[in-house]
């Protein structure tokens, strides 16, 4: 899967999934 230069590519959804997963991941901060 290669991105097309200059335009939205198939990785756009992968990126959104990844960062949304990061957002929803519970933050495990020790207090």
């Amino acid at each position, binding site marked *: 899967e290669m991105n097309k230069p200059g335009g939205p590519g198939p990785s756009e959804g992968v990126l959104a*999934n990844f960062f949304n997963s990061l957002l929803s991941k519970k933050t495990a901060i020790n207090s």
Partner: protein
Amino acid sequence: MESNSLCESLLKWLETFPGREGTKISHLTDGVLMANVLHQIAPEYFSEYWLTRIKADVGDNWRLKVSNLRKVQQGVVDYYQEQLNQSIRHFPLPDLNKIGEHGDAVEMGRMLQLLLGCAVNCENKQQYIEAIMNMEERVQKVIMEAIQELMLREGSPGAVGLDGDGR
């Protein structure tokens, strides 16, 4: 991941912090700006007191620069371990001498990668992650791979896979 691309992309990421526009490698080699960014990311850990340990105005003295960089790196390693319960033993720590003495882009990229991991795992991670999601796709991809490299080893319990499948 190409390291020059890593450094270039993470410099762009750093520019998303208020007042950090136009940041170049040469602005980072004394560790002061990175320490301030860490204070911004997690002020409860990288406190005002911690900041006082970083010497400002070190000029061209590379030994003082490396001394500052060492304190920054140690602070970050401790933050992962003590605050995030996340092991980064697999991650090759940057060569601080190469950063302090030569402003090496490859090593600087790895240093900024460590800061990135703090930002996307800290209590205020939402603002940092959303800022990344507003960046151009090419940069987002490099940042995603940089985060994965930090998080996807040693079966880290909090690891997030490429497509969220928990690999």
